[in-house]
């Protein structure tokens, strides 16, 4: 078993979620695709995107 399978199995086992080989193959496919799409974020320099403070007291009142 490779790193991914070992890691995924351990994580799911801790969450008491049973997975089979087909699940793992599907998860790996989605995971890799997701990582590829998220890769663009590695180029993100947060200094270029200064954050703006949000005052929580101004949150919408939903009641």
């Amino acid at each position: 078993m490779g790193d991914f399978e070992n890691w995924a199995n351990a994580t799911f086992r801790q969450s008491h979620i049973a997975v089979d080989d087909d699940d793992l193959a599907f998860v790996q496919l989605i995971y890799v695709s997701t990582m590829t799409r998220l890769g663009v974020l590695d180029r993100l320099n947060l200094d270029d995107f200064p954050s703006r403070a949000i005052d929580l007291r101004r949150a919408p009142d939903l009641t």
Partner: protein
Amino acid sequence: MSHPQDLSLHEQAAAIARGDLDPTELISTTLLRIVERDGPINSTPVVFEKESMAMLHDAPRGALYGVPITVKDMFALPWRAARNGSERDLISATASGPFRRLRDAGAVVVGIANQHELGMGTTGAISAYGPMGNPWNPATCAGGSSGGSAAAVSARLVAGSLASDSAGSTRLPASYCGVVGLKLTYGSVPYDGYFGASTTFSAPGVIARDARDARLLAEALLDRPLASSSGAPLRVGVVRTPFWDDVDPEIAVACESALRDAEWNVVELQIEHLELVGAAVLGRLIAEASPPSADVMATLSRPTRAMLLASMLASNIARVGRLRVAITSADGGLASAMSRPSTAAPTSSRCSICSSTTFHSASRSADSQATAISGSTSSQKGVRTTPTRSGAPLEDARGRSNNASARSRASRASRAITPGALKVVDAPK
């Protein structure tokens, strides 16, 4: 008039108000039409004969008095739990916030609108009730996740339906089925009794045959009138790149024609860093997707289960952490409140699968030091913060997928922090 459901929503409401249309008859003929016509599109798998008549009996004379609608399976009703397109009850039967608003406007719920399982798909092809077909060609998909809402309105089974939208779940199926979909502003409608796919994206939406009907439904849900305007002086920005890069010529012509006919002031725009938007949205969706309990997980379709499991893994990486919203406060905020034993993945210098150097590198304990949370919703007054799995161990994610648990987490968070400022922080690598 051939059938009352050939009337628009506002025409139905007006005809009832004038006394030209008997609401009891409208409900009966609507239920009959659903039974007769819904087979191939499977938009409304559950109808409420008894409950709809009871609703009509008690309905106030509001703007939607006597008008039949359907409600996406994501919203709990007083007589039926929210199942979210799955086999299991996910939120117990209760009058959800959006339901209350529609009920108070006099609307009558005649059935459940089918949807993509857990809202985790844009095709409507996967649901415990079976796939949804597009009324224009039932062999093709209706879109999703609110496919049942869009298909029912398009097929004239009902004139309006309550949908929801995290990343297009109202707008996409409406587009697929040739009707109008409007996502309402996040936080503008009470959130309780609603099982959204994402804590900071999901919001109720409406699907109707035209903009006027969408407005009528939206006003009921918002419980306030919307400002009226001809839109004549409206300045509209059109971002062609990359959105028009592969558009079908037919669609491009239709859009150009609509822009021209509206006589708006059209401004061509280019937006920098658009390449980051998709990744940012994906990252937030991953960070906020909460796997249901293990027993519910076992009943889900394999694709839905795999997406949830993949999000469990992906939410543990620094890339997603970089998008997290953190709460800061004098006492360290959520860092101390949410710090728990780490379930960090084994570290690796480089992922053997995707070659990412950040794979496995963001440990839970490191996450906690970043005072990271990645959700912000609840009906709590004042402070509205919901830490997600990002700030809690994975085993705590089990069974925390409904709004009750979100509120519980928010309550914990609101007790733990002093209302302060939100800011984006970089999670440690």
